[in-house]
């Protein structure tokens, strides 16, 4: 399908062989791009072309392509997930750019997210944080009758909003300190606000934060960049809640 008024763009994409080598920005002209294509579809078109001319395609992460898996991690023109708020890279369309634009695409940059290849980073540090306490391990029994356990609407809403985090890592990518506090605070909040999460509440906060620090994420300086760039609009209130959870775990918990 050829498009009348298809866009011609210049892409500058980070190419890196593996985590041990150094990378560089490489320039790729792309032509006849439909404004209705998603950003990833534009990459598909480019990769097809690279493959057909015997060149190596650009490695990038993606899975659901509908904003729920958190895989598509592209830093576009200096911002995670590109110029629009509240969406992931796969939800970004080419109509957000102008014909003739130059677009710089880089991987997330953080010591805790080493580059695997090109735009693909290893975010297993997030998995290790979750493994340290982002779950409920006590038996909560069978599914209860809906109104058996009463939960204030505000708590339910806050927990639900925190649970919307898809673990994409844009908060880390956006933060000038590569801090993971928005992610970790969302994961702590979604459990600490609900009754089932109470039993492991203090150890959860302590353990998850200890792993977060070990993994080499930076310190939060409250710039708010994470909240502004988060595709799920996770609130900074969660970070304040995490601080409270941690202080009460360290200071008030009756243990050594």
């Amino acid at each position, binding site marked *: 399908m050829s498009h009348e008024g298809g866009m011609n763009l210049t892409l*500058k994409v*980070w190419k890196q062989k593996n985590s041990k080598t150094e990378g560089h*920005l490489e320039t790729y002209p792309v032509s006849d791009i439909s404004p209705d294509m998603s950003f990833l579809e534009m990459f598909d078109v480019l990769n097809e072309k690279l493959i057909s001319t015997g060149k190596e395609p650009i490695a990038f992460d993606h899975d659901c392509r509908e904003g729920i898996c958190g895989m598509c991690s592209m*830093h576009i*023109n*200096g*911002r995670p997930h590109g*110029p629009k708020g509240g969406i992931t890279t796969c939800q970004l369309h080419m109509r957000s750019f102008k014909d003739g634009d130059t677009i*710089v695409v*880089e991987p997330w*940059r*953080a*010591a*805790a997210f080493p580059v695997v290849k090109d735009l693909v980073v290893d975010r297993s540090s997030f998995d290790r944080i979750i493994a*340290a306490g982002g779950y409920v391990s006590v038996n909560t029994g069978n599914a209860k009758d809906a109104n058996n356990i009463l939960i204030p609407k505000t708590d339910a809403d806050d927990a639900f909003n925190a649970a919307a985090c898809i673990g994409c890592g844009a908060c880390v990518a*956006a933060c*000038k*300190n*590569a*801090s993971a506090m928005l992610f970790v605070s969302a994961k702590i909040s979604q459990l600490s606000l609900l009754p089932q999460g109470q039993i492991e509440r203090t*150890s959860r906060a*302590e*353990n998850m*934060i*200890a*792993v*977060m*620090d070990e993994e*080499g*994420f*930076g*310190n*939060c*300086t*409250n*710039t*708010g*960049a994470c909240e*502004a*760039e988060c595709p799920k609009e996770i609130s*900074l*209130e969660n*970070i*304040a*809640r*995490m*601080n*409270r959870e*941690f*202080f009460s775990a*360290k*200071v008030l918990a009756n243990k050594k």
Partner: protein
Amino acid sequence: MSKETFLTSTLGRKLLMGLTGLFLIGFLVVHVSLNSLIFLNDHGATFNKGAHFMSHNIVIRIMEVGLFAGLIAHMVLALQLTLKNNKARPVKYAMTNGNANSSWYSRSMGILGSLLLMFLVVHLANFWIPTKIAVFNETEHNTFEDMKVVFSKWYFVSVYMVGVIALSYHLLHGFQSAFQSLGMNHRKYSPLVRKVGILFAIGVPVIFAAMPLVIAFGLIK
């Protein structure tokens, strides 16, 4: 796991950063109130009485030690946090658009703080050291006269203007940030904290800035 102690954790250090920051904000309140006595325009008589009290009262002098301790802690923590943060992103972005998601001053607390430190060195040399020497020698000391001498020089007035501008932006982010670090984020009170923070970050530096200016322009004698 959880070998981490409170004070070695990122969150513990952040809390201390906030607490020492609020402590220094408390000092600013005292400092700006006392210095405002020069606006009485009584040739510094009331102001000098206040300054004499501050430099001789034993309780104040003990608190002064605490003040320096708080200031040093604030700086050491900032240094530690910054070093860790630099390590957290060893490869920088080729392109960043920070202004799209945060204010420049929230991202520049280290630079603003360093400017403040440089200002502080000049400021202490101008006023604090001469006062200490006088107290040590038990000689009479007229701080108001010191102000007139210092602020008759345009280069000192300029240094003070840079100092208060750096202070203003440092406070603009620091004030509300301290509450967030303390875990105080509340739907009812946080908007108020932010408003008070903005008023404080503008008001206090403006009053401080007025002091060299009124003296330099001879409005207060």
